[in-house]
């Protein structure tokens, strides 16, 4: 049983390539036990999305991802009828339809007969499942990732409430579909705006911050195995100093990993001034940030 207790959860996540704090492990474990969604908040790039992927890998489940943005609505998140396909089928099956109504005594009776066949038109065959419905209908348990939920509209958030509290979806033509297995739901938010109380109440809350140097080194070593221990230490220390600068976009773990990967490809064995300057574009995503780091580069690469 991968998520039988907190320790097992931590080990499972670790095996899936995600080094996590006891808090993260506890919350993930509790969410798995209670079947409740987890709302993960924190700065960009600290591994919020990665957590969902790791859970999926650890549990051996499929990951279904719903990326939120302004203007996302139910037809893109839940389901849509395939009108074109329905129309096509109607055209092709025209003869069958006339067969069905032939011999009808009146128009009313013909209508009755077509109505009896209504199910043929509104069946799962013509239903285009979007991520939410897919997650609910899936015969095997899945992990559902609702990414950047803070970017969605308040209307969509309200709609999510129904799905997240009962794990069921009502399709007027087909009836209510209840989830066969409660999916493991992870919602991520960048704190662009606050989520409503109602949504928060239905979730367990988890705040992931920038990791401490020790954890970060662990992550770097795990993800980029070829990196020497010394370089990893220098890298993490330098990153800590860069984060302390006043930057427009503070680099997070994902940038650290990119940087480590870049250094590995360049076959660098020690972090020097020149190396930092030449690989600066990997960590700084704004020109001004790069300038700022360039000014402070001496301090950044001062290792004992």
């Amino acid at each position, binding site marked *: 049983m991968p998520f039988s*207790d*907190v320790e097992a959860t931590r080990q499972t996540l670790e095996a899936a390539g995600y080094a996590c704090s006891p808090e993260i492990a506890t919350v993930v474990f509790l969410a798995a*036990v209670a079947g409740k969604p987890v709302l993960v908040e924190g700065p960009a790039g600290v591994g919020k999305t990665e957590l969902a992927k790791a859970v999926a890998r650890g549990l051996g489940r499929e990951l279904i991802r719903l990326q939120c943005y302004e203007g996302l609505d139910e037809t893109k998140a839940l389901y849509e009828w395939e009108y*074109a396909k329905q129309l096509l089928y109607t055209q092709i099956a025209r003869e069958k339809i006339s067969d069905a109504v032939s011999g009808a005594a009146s128009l009313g009776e013909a209508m009755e007969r077509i109505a009896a066949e209504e199910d043929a038109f509104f069946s799962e065959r013509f239903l285009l499942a979007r991520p939410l419905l897919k997650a609910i209908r899936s015969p095997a348990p899945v992990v559902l990732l609702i990414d950047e939920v803070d970017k969605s509209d308040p209307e969509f958030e309200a709609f999510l409430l129904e799905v997240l509290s009962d794990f069921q979806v009502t399709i007027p033509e087909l009836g209510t579909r209840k989830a066969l297995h409660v999916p493991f739901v992870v919602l991520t938010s960048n704190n662009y705006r606050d989520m409503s109380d109602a949504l928060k109440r239905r979730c367990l809350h988890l705040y992931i911050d920038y990791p401490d140097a020790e954890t970060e080194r662990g992550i770097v070593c795990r993800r980029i195995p070829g990196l020497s221990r010394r370089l990893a230490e220098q890298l993490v220390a330098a990153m800590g100093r860069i984060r302390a600068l006043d930057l427009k976009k503070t680099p997070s773990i994902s940038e650290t990993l990119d940087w480590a990967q870049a250094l590995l490809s360049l076959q660098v064995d020690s972090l020097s001034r020149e190396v930092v300057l030449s690989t600066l574009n990997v960590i700084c995503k704004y020109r001004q940030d790069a300038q700022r780091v360039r000014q402070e580069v001496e301090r950044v690469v001062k290792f004992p």
Partner: protein
Amino acid sequence: MDVMIHRFAAAARAAGLRIATSEVLDALALLPRVDILDEAQFAALLRANFAKSRLERARFEHLYHLFFHELREDLHASSAPVAPHVEDFRRELISLEPPSEALSAIADFLAADPAAYLELLNSLQSEGRGAAGGPRGAGANLGGLVRRLPVLRALQRAREALDGFLAANRSRIHWETRRDLERHLAGRLETARRLLAGEDPLRRLTPTPLPAVTETYGELGRTPFANLSPGERVRLREAMAQLVRRLRDQTGLRTKARSRGLPDLKRTLRGAVRTQGIPLELRFRRRPPRKGRIVVLCDVSGSVWSTARFMLVMLYALQDCFDRVRSFVFVDAPHEVTRHFDDHEADRALTEVLHDPAVPYGAPTDYGRTLRLFRHRHLDTVTKKTTVIVIGDGRSNYGNPEEAILGEIRDRARRLIWLNPEPEAFWNSGDSEMRSYAVLCNEVRVCQNLNQLADIVRNLVL
């Protein structure tokens, strides 16, 4: 253990955390699944269920420490013999004449039930809400202290009662127990005093760092608005007009591209029914991009006004990029000035606002009262689609800052942005309440020159 969680939840509610019954139930249901002897797990369980945002987290940590450490540990140390006497003392405190609410709250606090005391403290923080308008003048500055006084006095009385209690029971209680009892209760009284002294956990929370600014304009962009020469003012206006034009063009392009959009198959086919299934007319998905609604709250006292006026001019020049802009100016009470801007050119409107007899320009700035009245009269202007912008230095003349109301506004709004015309170094000095306000905002920025203003407006529009 269940009882403890219930009491913790009650205490947390008393201290202003919003915890729903369902959240308590969830926590209780999950409790058997964690190892409660492992504190990391236990704390994570409560945190995940009770603290659901960054702000609440800070408050939660504080409460957690108070409840499970400070109020618990001494009991373990001195254990059984003390407990009945604590109860005796509590009863004695409650029966003390004249009875006071504060005293009975303290009595409960000493017996490790902090809910009533925390609620008392919380009500001190947000007092004055009901009495809008309240007493003003010189005394108002002392408001916080005056309100705390009865509690301080009650604490003093409790201390005296403790001495009396110990003396009276000299013969009845063993001296070792007596010593433990005194140490235990004195320690708690000290904790209570410290809480009262107002170590607000939110104040220790570091606000999100200020975003860096793109330097679009050179020298002119760096000069603070207040120091501009007349010649520079003209150039500033030109630069602003140019910026406004460019932003309008950009948003216009976006709107146009979006309104063409992708073909909407569903609607096209539905329309085709009329022409026997042949789609004669193509329909497109028309989704006009969301336009933000904006509510501006503008401090119009001296130093701030020079910045505020430029911001207002900008916002109204870009009015068609937003759904609606509503503006309020305040000195000690919010006053809506949207009408002036709707009727006239921005410049004329500004002059009118400056000469509006309804705005008491001579009065001392009072952010607390402004927020209180804003909540009372205009809170309906703030919805989930609104971006609220406050322009001000947060200098409230030592009045009650009422940051709780600002938090309430933020909960209702889509985003809350605070623009401060003072350089960051001056924040939190003197009567500036930026520390309390900044942690509540989604975004805090310095806004004293064109570079910063341009950056803000660009972020707002695009």
